[in-house]
């Protein structure tokens, strides 16, 4: 029995640890970076590991801890290795410094994570100067390579990660001249917002869009447009950091022929984190935009537990795979829901909940879940904040008609 874990970030490593804990003999984690650990490797702030390891750690310490846990649990970790082929019928192809090899695992846990949409994908016009980056690049420049990150920076976005970018810029010697969001307010914690104003004197411009970037060879100015008045103004800066706007790194998922969910753009999974391809689970931030690392790790653990549970003997991984699933779809302004399929025998979703995201704020939202005109659940959930997940119960899944139409989730009222 071999389980191949693709991606050595929190989700993949947590899955590997859990598989070994359940006695799965062969667990191979393939990581394309030189070091396992994923995004936390270069997120130096504190607060990692609260939900999964029950202790506060910095990102790099958390990443190291997980790599150690996986190794000491007996999982094989292969870094600098990339999956370069995954046909619909046939072995996976790995490429690394040891050469090219193929592998035919009994099951796969896909945990390739997510990334931020770069400036080009956001169609921001203007010149193409140096100094335009995502938080991912910024953190690696400053924390992994010890390099400077410009002197005057504009942060695009006002989510948790945007405030993390602010700290990274400060560490790298750059002053943040402002943060800008198209939304009417920030999406993070009041404490972070207050800190940005008081400690770093970085103003927050809401309802504003970056409408052009100018400068050569480096950024010189950014044009901001007020979405309500249409008035444009120019901000002088030499660095622009595009934060959040996450997209699952789903290239392998597509290569492997997995069905994607149009909302999350990650693989469509049921509560057991089973994808449309028999034997293939998916976990962590590949399933949707970023959640914190500990939530991703718990998702990996959940997939591993389900893999083991459903596979005794192991061949059942494939034989017990659900043939038909009922998709769960959201209506605008809801953005996505995860898991996003209902299948027989899937059990309880990770952390006992469905995660729901909205593109708009709602103070006391009432959500309605229905199938073929039949209401399965209706009730209030916590505040909806774009970029943050609200918790939705899961007990309604028992009432889903496996032969029915897709389940629809909508915002019935904003409260």
């Amino acid at each position, binding site marked *: 029995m071999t389980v191949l874990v693709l991606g050595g970030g929190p989700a993949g490593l947590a899955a590997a640890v859990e598989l070994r804990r359940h006695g799965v003999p062969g667990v191979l984690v393939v990581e394309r970076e030189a070091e396992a650990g994923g995004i936390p490797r270069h997120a130096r702030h504190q607060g990692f590991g609260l939900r999964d390891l029950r202790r506060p750690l910095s990102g790099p310490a958390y990443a190291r801890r997980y790599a150690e846990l996986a190794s000491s649990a007996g999982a094989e970790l292969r870094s600098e290795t990339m999956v370069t082929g995954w046909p619909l019928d046939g072995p996976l192809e790995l490429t690394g410094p040891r050469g090219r090899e193929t592998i035919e695992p009994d099951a796969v846990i896909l945990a390739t994570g997510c990334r*931020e949409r770069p400036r*080009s994908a956001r169609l921001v016009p203007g010149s193409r100067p140096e100094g335009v980056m995502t938080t991912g690049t910024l953190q690696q420049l400053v924390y992994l390579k010890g390099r400077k990150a410009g002197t005057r920076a504009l942060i695009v976005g006002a989510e948790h990660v945007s405030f993390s970018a602010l700290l990274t810029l400060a560490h790298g010697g750059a002053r943040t001249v402002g943060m800008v969001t198209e939304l009417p307010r920030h999406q993070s914690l009041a404490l972070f917002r207050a800190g940005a104003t008081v400690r770093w004197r970085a103003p927050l411009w809401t309802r504003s869009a970056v409408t052009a970037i100018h400068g050569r060879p480096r950024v010189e100015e950014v044009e901001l447009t007020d979405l309500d008045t249409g008035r444009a103004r120019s901000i002088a800066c030499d660095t622009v950091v595009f934060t959040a706007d996450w997209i699952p790194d789903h*290239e392998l998922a597509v290569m492997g022929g997995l069905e994607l969910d149009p909302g999350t753009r990650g693989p469509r999974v049921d509560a057991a984190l089973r994808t449309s391809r028999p034997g293939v689970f998916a976990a962590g931030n590949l399933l949707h935009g970023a959640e914190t690392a500990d939530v991703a790790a718990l998702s990996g653990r959940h997939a591993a537990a389900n893999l083991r549970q459903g596979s005794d003997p192991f061949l059942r991984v494939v034989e017990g795979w659900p043939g038909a699933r009922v998709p769960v779809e959201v209506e605008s302004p809801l953005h996505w829901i995860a898991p996003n399929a209902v299948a027989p025998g899937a059990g309880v979703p990770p952390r006992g909940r469905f995660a729901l995201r909205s593109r708009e704020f709602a103070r006391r939202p009432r959500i309605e879940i229905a199938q073929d005109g039949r209401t399965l659940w209706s009730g209030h959930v916590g505040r909806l904040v774009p970029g943050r997940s609200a918790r939705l119960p899961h007990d309604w899944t028992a009432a889903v008609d496996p032969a029915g139409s897709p389940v629809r989730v909508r915002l019935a009222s904003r409260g």
Partner: protein
Amino acid sequence: MSGPHDTDVAIVGAGVVGCAIARELTRFELRVTLLEAGPDVGAGTSKANTALLHTGFDAKPGTLEARLVARGYELLGEYADRVGIPVERTGALLVAWNDEQLAELPGIAERARANGTNDLREVGVDELYRREPHLGSGARGAIEVPGEGLVCPFTTPLAYATEAVLAGCDLRRSAPVVSASRIEAGGFRLELPGGALTARYLVNAAGLGSDELDHMLGHDRFTVTPRRGELIVFDKLSRPLVSHILLAVPTKVTKGVLIAPTVFGNVMLGPTAEDVQRKDDTESTRAGLDYLWAEGARIMPELLEHEVTAVYAGLRAATEHSDYQLGVHAPEGYACVGGIRSTGLSASMAIAEHVRDELGAAGMPLEPSAAAAPEFRMPNIGEAFERPYERRDLIERDPDYGRVVCFCERVTRGEIRDALEAPVPATDLDGLRRRTRAHMGRCQGFFCGAELAERLGSA
């Protein structure tokens, strides 16, 4: 050839045309100096175009452009195979979307025949949708141009420059010509930031700056008005949507917006066509992108569901004349190669031949070089050909070819190293991108940006 001048031939401009001329002239006993104002070869207009290998089927018959594109198509196609420039012969479908356009197709086919392209074929609506099932609704018919293809716009000038440098060409980058004048006793004097350079013969391949250099030498034949073209490049996952180059029926003003695969495995939508004032105005615009988006929604709506990988804008060196502005002043030994528009990539080798012959007729001695032609092959960055990460033998010999640094484009550490040590080495991130594909993928540096910056020694 030797004489009182610093060099026999100075070529100003290391775009695809200047590089092709340098390559051609280094095959003779000539000291060739190639001067480039920018930081790299092929880093101006040559890097930002639609990257098509044109047959020249739609050129104006009888023009120099028509002749040189047709000849250049043959030459570059053969050269590309020989030195490893990625070329994909996808063929093109020129699609009519209304009655008016449908009525134009026979005329287009006629013009193609006049240009010597005889294999055009009318394609009915059913066949069109069978071959391009993702095409938007409402197409009325098409003409197939089987010979049209894709060519790598980055490797082409680099290959020419590499061969030229290996054959002894003195390539100087970041060397803008500040002023140029004739020397009384013959030849030319060019003022460069590092001092003067004298040359017996001068080739003006300065592209957007070709009119200014021409004016410096006392001519007043044409003015370059940059015509900006904006392009949107879509994620590789969209590549299966498109099989051919999908051309529009041209109007008097523009060839229209096309959708085409790229040799890197992406899909491209563009270009716009807009005259701009400044010769460095390569900014994309809201209006341009909105226009392309609307055109994309009409031509292939499914394409727009994919992520955008890159947006860029290039400047065509358009003049008030419709044909190339190629002129050789025999007594003084000056060749002006101006007004080379978007067809310049396809025509480059034929332009070089033409310039060689004209200069030869003007008295430049064309004694074949005693040295053997350089043996070299360009690193392949085309998606349709084997890349280093796919080569067992290479990785076995050097594990760095198995270490993927740029995940999106699968560029290995070995290739990055090679690009930094090449005969024409990369000196900045853009140069590295054009030589290896590093940083040109969907994440735009999220994963590899810092690593590449470190390897380049700049951030």
